[in-house]
């Protein structure tokens, strides 16, 4: 090796350059917090309630995407949900309120009924829909409450799922 000092200098220079190039970048960082709003809604029960033991849970659920199948219930990033509405079991109508809802557009929402013990044993029993019974999107704005959500529930004539 004829020029070890030159080699060492070159290696040191390369190292310095690389550190300079990459030293200021810290990779992944937390994304900015989402803005939040809230949802208030009313539920009207249009059929008899099923037996109590077949209603394991009942919640208002609003999706950012149109779910393809029940696997989309596993991604909390895709949807928000209310506290359990089982306390209203037997009532003809009731209201719900969901706070800390990330701002954005929700394209598919309704009341979800948990009918079995399985993780994916959920199905919709009423949709927030237009007059043609198509899912109706709504938008949550930062710091505002969406108030006009009205859902009719029929435990025996359920909306199709996955939605057509």
């Amino acid at each position, binding site marked *: 090796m004829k020029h070890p000092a030159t080699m060492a200098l070159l290696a040191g220079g390369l190292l310095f350059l690389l550190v300079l190039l990459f030293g200021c970048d*810290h990779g992944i960082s937390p994304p900015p917090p989402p803005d939040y709003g809230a949802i208030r809604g009313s539920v009207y029960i249009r059929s008899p309630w099923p037996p109590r033991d077949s209603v394991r849970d009942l919640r208002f659920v609003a999706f950012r995407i149109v779910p393809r199948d029940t696997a989309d219930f596993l991604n909390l990033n895709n949807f928000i949900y209310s506290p359990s509405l089982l306390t209203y079991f037997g009532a003809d109508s009731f209201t719900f309120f969901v706070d800390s809802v990330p701002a954005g557009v929700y394209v598919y929402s309704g009341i979800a009924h948990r009918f079995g013990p399985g993780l994916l044993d959920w199905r919709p029993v009423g949709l927030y829909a237009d007059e043609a019974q198509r899912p109706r999107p709504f938008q949550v704005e930062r710091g505002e409450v969406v108030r006009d959500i009205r859902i009719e529930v029929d435990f025996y004539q359920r909306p199709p799922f996955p939605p057509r």
Partner: protein
Amino acid sequence: MRPLLVLLLAILGATSSMAQPATGVLEGRVRSVSGEPLVGANVLLEGTFLGAAAGADGSFRIERIPAGRYLVRISMIGYETYREPVDIRPGETTRLEVRLRERAYQAPDVVVTASRREQRLQEAPISVSLLSPRELEVRNVLKLDEALRYVPGVYMTENQINIRGSSGFSYGVGSRVAVLFDGIALQAVDRGETALDAFPLDQVERIEVVKGAGSALYGSSALGGVVNLITRTPSDVPTTALRLYVGAYEPVRYPEWKARWAGARRFRFFEGLVLSHSHRPHPDFGYWASLTVQRDEGFRKDNDELRIRSYARLSGRLGSQWKWDLYGSAIRSQARTFYFWDNARNALLYETDRATGGNNHNRTVQLSLIPVLTWLPAANQFHLVRVRYYFNHVTPLNSPDPVRRDTNATRLHVVGFDEQSTWHLHRIGVLTAGLGGEVGFVRSGFYRGNEGLRLRTQPNLSGFLQWELPPGRWTLKPALGLRLDWYPTGEVTYTRLSPKASLVWNAGETLALRASYGHGFRVPSIAERYVKDDAFLPLAPNPRLRPERSISWELGLRWQALGWLQMDLAGFWNTYRDLIEARFQTGLPGVRGGAFQFQNVTQARIRGLELELEASPRSELRTRLGYTYMDPVDRSGPVETVLAFRSRHLLFWNTELARGPWRLGVDFRYLSKMERIETDFARFVEDVFLVVPIRLWDVRLGYERGFWAVNLIIKNALEYYYVERPALLAPPRNYTLQIRLRR
């Protein structure tokens, strides 16, 4: 215990002394040119099992050598190999004082994995990378997955080994790389994985990484390559080594990651010790034993572990032709595993409310016992028989209910054997042939399939044959190999025929060109075929899964130049078929709502180039550079896309500088950003698309003097946050203080 040992030694001594009435002794010392004793240098009389390893002062002694002329070989990684004839006379002691000259590159003269026999690295028909024990020690590496992060062309997707992009990420099930311990496969047949934290790396002589499909020699799992840990032979002089370390993860820099967990606001500690002893108390009997205790608080919430690992190897000779080894291990660990983050704003937490949330708490007990018998009836023959027993018991501790713990526990027993014979035949070449078999029994509530069975078995039988032109005589060395594997597994019988072919051209001492072709396959594990669960994540069985297959082509060149530079350049073209991935399926019979199921879905092609350079322009400076370019293509659909979970560029650079007792080391690793994340994975975990290129700097400073050394290691020195696989933050900057003693 002591009378038993004395009796054993007496029997061994009597046996060997009866066989060899006229013997002599070879003793001596191995040192470097600068006079430092070379601890662990291998001394071997070629064509026999007579050998020794140098002790702490570099001395060795081989007794009961039948009188005659031998070729003595003294080798150590990083030094020129010494080969000289010696005459052993009856009743006399022959003394050797050897000084090995340091070599520019770390690679040893011989490797064993590429062709299942000892051969010069220059004659290996396929790319082989090596890791020396020193590289593991100075980085405080205690687990194989940590070690492999420093091999060019290899990267880890959490705990899955990727050789040139072979594996991707398959949810911790089914390794696409065969992992061997002194040539022995210790794979858990239930998950098709080898526990990468179960090996005694302090007793490793070197790690060989063979890149490319290797099922023609090693059977299932060698789809993308083979990793083989070669352990040391017992040292002649009693040698005790102790490594103590304590370290800490620095608190993360972002307030968001610390907001919901107080544990993230302080340094989080890890510590441990590695104690080993190696000795050959009798010329025909030696042993080493190793104990490792590790505790790690972890830097993520509920992600800690306590591990106690003990290993031992007993070795003996019965005359100069027979050799036996007995390996045994007992490992106990208790760990809380963190699967997925809650989301990128809570990267150190998992979502406790979510059914698919990412934490598990297990206790694992592993035992293994491996007797090996080797016979060297003549200088041109070698026969080996190995039997292995492996036990693994995993108890889930999440549930406080002992009945539920027992139901969900997994107990695995694996019994296997393999036989290998090698003949060096005049005019015909080197023939290597072998037979093997294994049966695994696993009892678990998770693998009940549709039939509800709790006990599953997976037997297999195999045979292989390899022919090579004899080394040394020809500059052009062709080789052919074929292996048959048979898995009668109930519903389906898997039969695989795996060929290989290679050609090596040694154009002089310093240049070798190679071309190789080989097949690989992986039989689906019991977990992939029979897992059924609905308490955690809905999982459905698929008993008719097909084996994954691969074909590897490689053209390569190895060149040693200027006396201080070694280069390996390879072009590779690998195709993969029927790769198994977990997919969400609806409409499965008997499954309400849908479930995840393992399926043969992916067809892929990965081609690329790899350059590995190792240089030591001055004796105190060593540097190693590895660059791999890959073109990973998913060919499953009508349109080709980028293969998921793969990087396109891999770069590894290491430099070591020694100045008197001081040592300075720097490692840099770069992996380009994964260009595609598998979409079903993204359906149930948040922020999975948040991936970045990996750029990591590790720095260490050491002081070595006599029998002790101190080392300060800073990993991820520039505090870079990244994921090796989506939704799992990798370790932040961490510091380790290590003290090593060897006597």
